[in-house]
């Protein structure tokens, strides 16, 4: 009950704050909020597959990258909203195509395979771009920051809503059973292959759109950057720092990261990977339920 209360008050407050923010008139603040919304959208979508089924993906960036690429190819020819939809669709189709073979392997093999596939996709696109003589493509007609912010904010809300819906659905119960014991899940009638594939595709669509919006913000496409594996590492770390057990986790994890990056990384960018690694180890060892675990303990005590 208390948990519900916290979410019922906290959720709408966050949404209101998010909506009001552009009216504060500070571009600096809006830039930070844009990043926050982006990480929430990405981490929340990652959790739909990885936190729910235990299939930990280390290649989530691949969907952003594909989204970015499809967006840069279609934007201009197609109206921007349609190009964004194409980006999401392309990521979803890609998940559908690679999902069946990829989701056959489990545990550490899945982690390595997703990482490897993302790197492969990066190199393929880099090669294509090089052979076309394209080293970076520019966007000239990007909308203003507040428009982009609102789109990204919408994606964060949509991603969170999707995570909530999946968690409370029949699908979510099946995914959790897969995480806990896949053979036992199959023996009680859970169509494990189909459910994993559905989760994979659902988890891919929003990152695809995020990839497109991110391009509009940076205003150029460069394959090595669009498929940067550090994005995947960051997502996993945020999910673990925030806590994998609840929908709050990705929000808290993203918040912590964006704050940290404002305080630290803006000044000492070379520390990024070190701190990422240190946080990961600390949280896995000492706070496996993440930041949201703190709330749960408080609620349990009341």
């Amino acid at each position: 009950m208390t948990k519900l209360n916290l979410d019922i008050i906290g959720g709408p407050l966050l949404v209101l704050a998010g909506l009001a923010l552009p009216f504060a008139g500070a571009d600096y603040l809006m830039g930070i909020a844009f990043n926050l919304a982006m990480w929430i959208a990405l981490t929340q979508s990652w959790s739909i597959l990885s936190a729910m089924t235990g299939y930990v993906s280390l290649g989530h960036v691949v969907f952003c990258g594909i989204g970015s690429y499809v967006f840069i190819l279609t934007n201009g020819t197609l109206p921007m909203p349609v190009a964004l939809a194409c980006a999401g669709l392309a990521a979803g189709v890609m998940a559908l195509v690679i999902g069946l073979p990829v989701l056959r392997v489990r545990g550490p093999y899945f982690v390595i395979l997703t990482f490897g596939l993302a790197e492969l996709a990066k190199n393929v696109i880099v090669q294509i771009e090089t052979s076309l003589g394209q080293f970076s493509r520019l966007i000239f007609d990007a909308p203003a920051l507040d428009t982009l912010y609102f789109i990204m904010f919408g994606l964060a809300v949509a991603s969170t809503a999707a995570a909530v819906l999946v968690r409370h659905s029949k699908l979510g119960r099946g995914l959790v059973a897969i995480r806990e014991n896949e053979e036992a899940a199959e023996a009680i009638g859970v169509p494990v292959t189909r459910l994993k594939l559905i989760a994979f595709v659902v988890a891919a669509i929003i990152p695809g759109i995020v990839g497109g919006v991110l391009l509009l913000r940076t205003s150029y496409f460069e394959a090595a950057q669009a498929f940067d594996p550090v994005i995947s590492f960051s997502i996993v770390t945020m999910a673990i720092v925030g806590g994998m057990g609840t929908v709050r986790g990705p929000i808290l994890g993203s918040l912590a990261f964006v704050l940290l990056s404002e305080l630290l990384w803006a000044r000492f960018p070379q520390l990024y990977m070190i701190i990422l690694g240190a946080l990961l180890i600390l949280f896995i060892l000492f706070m496996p339920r993440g930041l949201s675990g703190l709330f749960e303990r408080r609620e349990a005590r009341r």
Partner: protein
Amino acid sequence: MTILDVQGISKSFGGLKALTNVSFSVEEGAIFGLMGANGAGKTTLFAVIAGQIKPSGGSVSFRNRTITGKRPDQICRLGISRTFQIVRPFAGISVLDNVIVSALYGAAASNSHAEAREAGIAALEAVGLAGSADKLAGELTLSGQKRLEIARALATGAEMLLLDEVMAGLTPTEVEEMIATLSELRRARNLTFMLVEHVMGALMALSDRILALDHGVPIAIGTPAEIAANPDVLKVYFG
């Protein structure tokens, strides 16, 4: 009426013949026992029937429908559910949530959470676990986890349960309770069972018919009294 018909099932793991030409049929409403020493192929036979292991030869039909080659989840939805000798609870979620998944996805698959919850609670009550519904499944004792295996199979709405050594590792009192639970289930729910047990007394007491396996080869089939008097069985068991 025959509910399960097993015809000439064989299974080899590399050079090892785990099952050799096993045939038998099970009548609806019966308790059919399987006996055999460690490694005789009992669990392998369950896995073949439930679809986790593809047999090297032979076929299985359930209600006159061939099920060999179907996936485990499909076979479950047709009405057969097995338990695991080495228990496989969904340890990180509650006991009730364990059985709710069964009710949502099994043979009696329901899309309503309220209905699934009701079916789940009924299954927990049937095995005497209702009092532990809110515990994490991983916190149950071994006896509790064996009961949860049965409850989860039950909550799928299966007509036929394959129970793999649900009494192994239990104290004599717990074995008595388990025998009572199974007898009551059979009476109240009109189920068909296949039982694997090393607890001979329990197997003899519960089964209508028994198949004895020796290194994957069927050596005798009959009523408990016939099995107990069978010279081949006596030879394998007592030398």
